[in-house]
């Protein structure tokens, strides 16, 4: 499976990754090689096979509906690149 440059750009857009033209070229080449290598899976007939979507066999425990202390705002926002008051600030969202 060879990826086109357009496909690389589309995937980069979905993933929100800015790629330089050099990176795009390299990505196109390397991803194509990897996708070619994984073609081997097509040899297998898996029509009747259930996918393994979960690795754990154990049933997860649930929480009781009780309120636990939240983080103090200063801790919640301590790593924020930008903030206003106790809100995170981002470049203006245009709808």
């Amino acid at each position, binding site marked *: 499976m060879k990826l086109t440059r357009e496909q690389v750009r589309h995937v980069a857009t979905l993933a929100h990754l800015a790629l330089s033209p050099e990176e795009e070229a390299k990505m196109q080449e390397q991803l194509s090689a990897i996708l070619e290598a994984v073609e081997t899976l097509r040899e297998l007939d898996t029509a009747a096979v259930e996918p*393994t979507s979960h690795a754990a066999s154990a049933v997860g425990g649930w929480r009781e509906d009780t309120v636990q202390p939240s983080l103090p705002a200063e801790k919640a926002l301590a*790593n924020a690149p930008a903030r206003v008051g106790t809100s995170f600030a981002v470049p*203006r969202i245009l709808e």
Partner: protein
Amino acid sequence: MKLTDLSLLELGRRLAAGEASSVEAVQACLERIRRLDGRVKAFLLVDEKGALAQAEAADARRRSGTPKGPLDGVPVALKDLFCTEGLATTAGSRILEGFVPPFDATVVQLLKAAGLPILGKLNMDEFAMGSSTENSAYFPSANPWDLTRSPGGSSGGSAAAVSARFAFGALGTDTGGSIRQPAALTGTVGLKPTYGRVSRYGVVAFASSLDQVGPLARTVGDAAALLQVLAVHDARDSTSSREVAPDYLRHLDAGVDGLRLGMPREYFEVEGLDPEVRSAVEAAAAAYQKLGATLVPISLPHTKYALATYYLVAPAEASSNLARYDGVRYGLRVAAPGLREMYAQTRGRGFGPEAKRRIMLGTYALSAGYYDAYYLKAQKVRTLIRQDFAQAWQKVDAILAPTAPTTAFKLGEKVGDPLAMYANDIFTLPCSLAGLPGMSLPCGFSRAGLPIGLQLLGKPFDEATVLRVGRAFEKAHDFVRVPPVGGA
């Protein structure tokens, strides 16, 4: 014998007997790190003050007869993938540079509760993606056995630190071999427990259905003792097992007499398996026979599909797990006038080439029109790989295999060729995809003096047998050695 050369269990015994103090042990480690880590570059961050304070507290508890446990005061170190409250956690990435978590990972809490001082945070491939530490955004680590070579990865810093005697043990994570492969390449013991055995809470996620925390240690006994601290159900991780862990040290020396050890044909037929590695593993198999085990030839027919399966499943999960690094709440932000530009620039600059490659691959494998052909297909083949093992367990108690196809490779050797790098994991991936426990332990040295790893795989939640089988070999053929660390 130098204090730093003791095993973790032996140091624990001496601390209990009052023959050594935790402060002495921590200082000895710090001194060695100061002297030698400039060459090895195992640590991203050394927390001298924190470790010494914890050591002093441990000594006080020992003096007052109230130790927290047998390992109270034994210093260890952490792969920089574990969140540590108040201590920077980078996951080896620029995008998390300067991130200081407001909480401890559950395993960090468990180590603290058991009294183990934490020396610092260890280098790794960015977001645990890699097999050499060369994908660290900061610097590659070196193999203490040959500083021009890689210690493996992604827990390369952890393996190097344990091998170089900077710490008495370390925590790593293993998604496709990231504990076992570096252990093999550095002559240390690395144990990946069963998926669900150890909590993942607070462990920066790479591929959630595969990630598992485990110890890197100098001996099998040390690995067992560390696992004992970690193997606790955690209500904060929905995939954490409720199965109560057995006493891993109790039957450690029970030997292998009467055990059936599987030799999977496919593992020994792999092209690219270094003849020296092959003969060392076969010699280990012969040794087991002498110790009373029965070798059983088995087949794991879908082994050759593991690599392709893994390189679809893991990147798919990673592409989603790494979406949270968006410059909004923590970590790097590259200023840009608009939101979309900020996202793309932050992530474009914050992630290294391997992380970007996997995000791209995973995004593609999940995207409309390709999901069935790639992601779903891989999850189905994963079922077949699990079934291979399920059938094997009808015949054998544990499986014996090489850990890595070669000994430590040169830094820079494979860095430009992702597929060659991925091929390092062929022997460790099937176990990860099946969620099984696996361990690597030293089983010899190449003519060039590089360590070779033997891999043991066990049934789900049967770490005890894996450890016992490993211990039997280690007892008969001790390959625990202190590396030269560049002739120091």
